[in-house]
């Protein structure tokens, strides 16, 4: 009996994912976003695992197992090559293949920042925002004032300052993003909690004597998360863009690791229109990834917000 129930629930989950995919694909732009995001996530998982394995097994060759060339191999005779069938994106000043570098750097320059920052921001924002909306009073007032102050500075510029204070390393950049990124989520969760709080089932749960932790997760978090998922999908793109801006300016770099924003900035400083492929292809890669998240997030917002005719 229990087995059947479990089976049905698993089946229900798979079916609901399939129905979501069908729902999203009704809009061609949404379908395009879904394809880009899926490809990006798959590649990040594969390449990220390979890089982790390479560093764990101390066998760097694993890191470029799937890439056309070794992204670190220098070939000074073949420097500054135009894009061709041999090097699809051309080569840089040390003759390294740009396509391999771009593919190698995707987990570091896009996937890690996006997922770490958005997920941490959602967690922090949920705890603070839901507690502010639910408890109200002075805690709400203080928290809203603090988010006001955070939101009064452009997030990226505050993140630059914090990561420079944190010695401008890659982890420093991630920390600085988490510090500046949670206020928006706290705002969103608070607004949603205020809406949900007035509903009858919360009052019923309170009367029933549900423990605060259960109330938080099962009643408030689950019921406020829907619009935030749609926003978070857009926000993955925002974080990727923001990280690339910081890398372009020269913050959050890791020596010995190619990063998309850094490659673009090197291409610019070596002479932009002359070596156009060096600056343009890494930037266009970021454009495509961010575009995928923006299209998918827009479509999700339409579906969840009820604006789309589906």
């Amino acid at each position, binding site marked *: 009996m229990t087995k059947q129930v479990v089976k049905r629930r698993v089946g229900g989950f798979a079916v609901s994912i399939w129905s979501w995919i069908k729902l999203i694909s009704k809009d061609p*732009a949404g379908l395009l976003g879904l394809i880009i995001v899926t490809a990006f996530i798959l590649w990040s998982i594969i390449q990220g695992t390979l890089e982790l394995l390479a560093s764990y097994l101390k066998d760097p060759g694993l890191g470029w197992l799937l890439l056309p060339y070794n992204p670190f191999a220098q070939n000074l005779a073949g420097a500054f090559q135009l894009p061709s069938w041999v090097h699809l994106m051309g080569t840089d000043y040390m003759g390294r293949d740009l396509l391999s570098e771009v593919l190698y750097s995707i987990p570091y320059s896009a996937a890690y920042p996006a997922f770490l920052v958005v997920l941490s921001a959602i967690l922090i924002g949920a705890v603070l925002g839901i507690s502010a909306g639910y408890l109200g009073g002075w805690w709400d007032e203080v928290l809203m*004032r*603090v988010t*006001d*102050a*955070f939101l*009064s*500075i*452009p997030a*990226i*510029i*505050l993140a*630059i*300052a*914090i990561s*420079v*204070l*944190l010695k*401008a390393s890659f982890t420093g950049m991630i920390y600085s993003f988490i*510090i500046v990124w949670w206020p928006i989520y706290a705002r969103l969760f608070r607004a949603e909690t205020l809406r949900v709080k007035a509903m009858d089932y919360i009052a019923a749960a309170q009367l029933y004597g549900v423990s605060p932790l259960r109330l938080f997760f099962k009643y408030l978090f689950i019921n406020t998360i829907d619009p935030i998922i749609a926003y978070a999908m857009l926000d993955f*793109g925002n974080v990727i*863009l923001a990280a*690339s*801006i910081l890398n*372009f*300016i*020269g*913050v959050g770099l890791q020596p010995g690791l190619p990063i998309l*924003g850094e490659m*673009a*900035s090197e291409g*610019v400083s070596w002479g*932009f*229109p002359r070596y*156009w492929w060096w*600056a*343009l292809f890494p*930037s*266009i890669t*970021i*454009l495509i990834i*961010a*575009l995928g*998240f*923006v*299209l998918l997030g*827009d479509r999700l917002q339409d579906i969840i917000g009820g604006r789309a005719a589906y």
Partner: protein
Amino acid sequence: MAGRDFVVFVIRRFINAVITLLILLLLMFILVHAIYTTPLALARLYAGPHATMAQLETIVKEYHLDAPLYVQFINYLVDVFTGNLGYDPIYKEPEVYIIMQYLPITLTFMIPAVILTVLVGTLLGAVAAANRNKWIDYLIRAFYVFTWSSPPYLIALLVLWVFAYLLGPYTHLPASGYVNPLLPKPKTITGWPLIDAIIEHNWAYVDSYLVHMILPVLSVFLYSFGVYTRMARNVTLDVLESDYVRLAYIKGLSRRVVVYRVGLRNALIPLVTLIVLTFALSWTGAYVTEVVFSYHGMGYITTVAITSVDPLMVYDITLFVGISVIIANFIADILYGILDPRVRIT
């Protein structure tokens, strides 16, 4: 219009802005003290990377870095409000003096970009909303989705490539710098080079300055255009679905009059708050654009400060950016109060 309640409204908004500024300063203060926990580490922030131990200790004494935190915070507040941000360890000049040289240069090309974004974005947002799900709507949406999701340096690079290199022989637009460096600088009167040159009737300088401004303004405009137009379209859509717009149709007004007189005028009110958001966003665009165009403003000194390991400078620049956004927010609040009298009461 300028009644007593309006004065009260302005005063209340002003107090609000000051409180936001105070919390901002407190936040920055806490951040710095959370990262640099000991007085000596703090002294290194003020003294630069190459200071000796003796120098650090004199700085600890001089700046009272070993005092209790609340004393330090009060000292810091007094310093900020008297315009004293200390000496820069690299330039050996007061921070405020350095920043006040670069801030006007960024603002002179940023403010026109924001105005352009607001004008064009509002208009195109209204056009897209009025022609919802027609080809012109799709065209505008496709355009803003692309500019929104492209990194600002890509936009700046493409603008540079197309207008300064490919079309260079026809447009004669410069690719870098903010003015022809061979021209004599105008005397410092207001501190804003463009305004100083206008006051002095130094038209050659003004001409060169404006010509250098075109491409950066275009880049920042294209960068902030996406976010603004998307919201303008949504706001106009909401307005067009409201009752008074239906009433206007029922009255028999033509579609053009309804959309661009009734609808747009009412959509303008919520859009005022978006101007601040655009202003804040443009700061990011301006930073990157300055790097691409070698335009010597705030973004340029930030990158220089990053490479010369000068966190104090980056910190103070951020403070100035925050203050500028708070001031912009204050002005937008007042505008909102003028446009929509209902806001004054709450």
